[in-house]
């Protein structure tokens, strides 16, 4: 029997068919018809205060659950406000489904009220997008959108839905297979070519200074277990990029930490001196490689990526394998079993070298009794947090300290904006993460500059009873910019000073229905954290007044070679043994 539905009802029903349990959004004129059936739907709708918040919440949700995040906005400014989250999700390969209202089809192109060509605007920052012009298309397009967003290299998609299409009626159906999605040009790869996998096994066996260079693709492929098996089978050291923190336990003896501009000295230098980079789901980002022409000059490269276009985009691999990291690692382990001889050479000399670097150049900051050190706040938050705590960061110094000083022991416990570097990501992403994993403690470690960009979403968190915890490392500056001006612009500070107490973060937190706490001296830090951890029925914001002069070390200056890594001034006299 045929079931007649409006386009709006068909859209919501399609989302239900996809197993969506929550969506984030804000209604408006063009999307009004779709907000009506939400009242009767099983899907929880979280009403945000700004559409950017909806997008980042959906991203945070997706990053901790592995399920696509869903956000819904109206046309025009509603849609343009979610452009930043789409760009962010595109850079970090996060599965995100955005549904935007559009003016009626007859009005498209007429500069109608709240009209914006959002499919045109987002063409370059979505994996794909659709403008629906026929109500019968709705179930098929929704199913196709979820398929595209979640398969292959995941990413954001957008569905633009004109108001007259939402109001039209159709006979309900649901596509029964991928073949019905009308995607003749979409064929994501999964398994690696066995010949290439065999060649990779040979390269690994011949290497003397190999490094597993692990990126976000390992997390997307749910390959953390497979990675651990490969690492332990071979004894090869592991570096985890900013997008891969948690893919390999930081406490593991083979973990060298994070590479890159603010990476651990040993991780940076091990890549640099390596004779074989085994890149699993990373993309030779410029923040990791430094000056590309001098990056890891003696290394051969095995590059595994589900996106074939990444192979050779930046660094030409000796063996490039297009495939899903989990499947390729499993194939690689099988190839190692099948071949004669040890899977790796004796790495003892390599490890001796690595241990020496670790001993000489651990992460370092100077402790103080007078000022709160931001690194110390991260360490103490970490030590007081229950296992499995999800950590969320914005972008800047606080993000680097969070990545450096937290110990990530399991996958999907680190949420941050990597490729796009979106300030203001933390608060809404933390809310989305908490919605996705209500069983976990969620700590956002944020900067004062970032916090001011999206703090209004704490109103959403309070009214929806989403008890996230926000630690503001408040140094009264746009700290990372300040650091660059200090180091590279002769301390000429231009437009980076904010103010420690304008706004008053405690009052602001309280005005948004949160608990507000302030820590002004090192003695305040412990009690503030304790109090924050005792709150579990509402959001809590802690204003840590941190030392404004603190800089992130190590640092590879932008455009410089990784050989020219700048260590903490305390360590700069130390001999580099090579």
């Amino acid at each position, binding site marked *: 029997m045929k079931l007649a539905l409006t386009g709006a009802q068909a859209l919501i029903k399609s989302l239900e068919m996809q197993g969506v349990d929550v969506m984030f959004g804000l209604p408006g004129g063009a999307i009004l018809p779709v907000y009506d059936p939400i009242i009767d739907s099983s899907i929880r709708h979280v009403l945000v205060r700004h559409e950017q918040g909806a997008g980042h919440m959906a991203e945070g949700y997706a990053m901790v659950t592995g399920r696509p995040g869903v956000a819904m906005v109206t046309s025009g400014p509603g849609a343009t406000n979610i452009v930043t989250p789409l760009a962010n999700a595109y850079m970090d390969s996060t599965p995100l489904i955005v549904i935007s209202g559009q003016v009626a089809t007859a009005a498209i192109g007429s500069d109608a009220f709240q009209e914006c060509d959002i*499919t*045109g605007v987002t*063409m*370059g920052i979505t*994996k*794909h997008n659709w*403008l629906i*012009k026929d109500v019968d298309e709705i179930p098929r397009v929704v199913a196709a959108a979820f398929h*595209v967003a979640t398969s292959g290299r995941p990413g954001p998609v957008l569905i633009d839905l004109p108001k007259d299409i939402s109001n039209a009626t159709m006979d309900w159906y649901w596509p029964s297979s991928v073949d019905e999605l009308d*995607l*003749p*040009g*979409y064929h994501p790869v999964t398994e690696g070519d066995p010949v290439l996998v065999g060649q990779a096994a040979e390269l690994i066996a011949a290497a003397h200074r190999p490094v597993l260079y692990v990126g976000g693709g390992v997390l997307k492929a749910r390959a953390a277990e497979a990675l651990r098996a490969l690492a332990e089978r071979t004894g090869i050291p592991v570096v985890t990029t900013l997008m891969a923190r948690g893919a390999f336990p930081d406490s593991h003896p083979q973990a060298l930490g994070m590479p890159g501009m603010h990476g651990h000295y040993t991780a940076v230098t091990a890549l640099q001196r390596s004779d074989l980079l085994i890149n699993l789901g990373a993309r030779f980002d410029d923040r990791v490689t430094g000056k590309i022409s001098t990056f890891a000059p003696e290394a051969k490269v095995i590059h595994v990526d589900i*996106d*074939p*276009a990444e*192979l*050779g*985009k930046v660094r030409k691999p000796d063996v490039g394998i297009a495939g899903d990291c989990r499947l390729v690692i499993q194939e690689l382990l099988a190839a190692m079993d099948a071949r004669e001889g040890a899977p790796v050479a004796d790495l003892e000399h390599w490890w001796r070298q690595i241990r020496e670097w670790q001993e000489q150049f651990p992460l370092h900051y100077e402790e103080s009794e007078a000022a709160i050190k931001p690194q110390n706040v991260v360490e103490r938050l970490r030590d007081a947090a229950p296992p499995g705590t999800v950590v969320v960061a914005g972008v800047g110094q606080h993000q680097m300290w969070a990545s450096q000083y937290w110990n990530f022991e399991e996958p999907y416990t680190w949420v941050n904006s990597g490729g796009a570097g979106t300030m203001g990501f933390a608060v809404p992403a933390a809310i989305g993460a908490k919605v996705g994993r209500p069983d976990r403690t969620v700590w956002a470690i944020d900067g004062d500059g970032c916090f001011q960009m999206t703090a209004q979403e704490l109103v959403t968190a309070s009214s929806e009873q989403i008890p996230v915890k926000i630690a503001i490392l408040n140094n009264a500056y746009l700290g990372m910019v300040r650091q660059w001006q200090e180091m590279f612009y002769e301390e000429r500070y231009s437009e980076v000073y904010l103010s420690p107490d304008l706004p008053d973060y405690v009052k602001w937190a309280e005005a948004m229905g949160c608990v507000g706490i302030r820590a002004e001296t090192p003695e305040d830090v412990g009690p503030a954290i304790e109090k924050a951890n005792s709150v579990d029925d509402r959001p809590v914001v802690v204003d840590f007044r941190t030392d404004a002069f603190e800089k992130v070390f190590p640092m590879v200056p932008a455009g410089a070679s990784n050989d020219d890594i700048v260590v903490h001034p305390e360590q700069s006299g130390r001999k580099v043994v090579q």
Partner: protein
Amino acid sequence: MAAAGAAAAAPRGAQLTALAGGRSAGPRHHILSVLVENKAGVLARVAGLFSRRGFNIYSLAVAPTDEDEHLSRITIVVDVESAPLEQVIMQLDKLVNVVSIGELSPAEAVERELVLVTVAVGPTERQQVIQLVGVFGGEVVSVGADRLTVMLAGRPEKIDDFEGLLEQYTVVELQRTGRVALPKLERH
């Protein structure tokens, strides 16, 4: 994408190269024959990808295919100095509406292009131009009191040659289509 063919002008960099080596694409160019779904916005997706990634298009021609009404063929001449060809192909392949990509090296392809030219002609030049068009196997397609519009289709080098010879006259307007290409057939 409209049913009618479209043509895009060569970017500035490609034009400079072209001045040195004739209007026709040189050895640093490759032809991509891209089958795409015949859907709204597809040409914008392809063109947008090229501009976003910093790849240069030398010329581009697009029209529906005969084989399947749902598909169109975009023939793109790529300036491979701007990016490695492999990278261009792999990025193109990621576009969901791109169904398949064929790469044609100039040696393995038959290429054709069409040009329309309006020439200002006095009484003496009129006959000369008509003769020249005849020699090249072109056609006079429109006749005015003091102008002729002529058409020539053929290999891009032939068009270059024709265009060069027309330079001694006053060319009022000239429009080339950009090339289309298919693989050369093998003979056994």
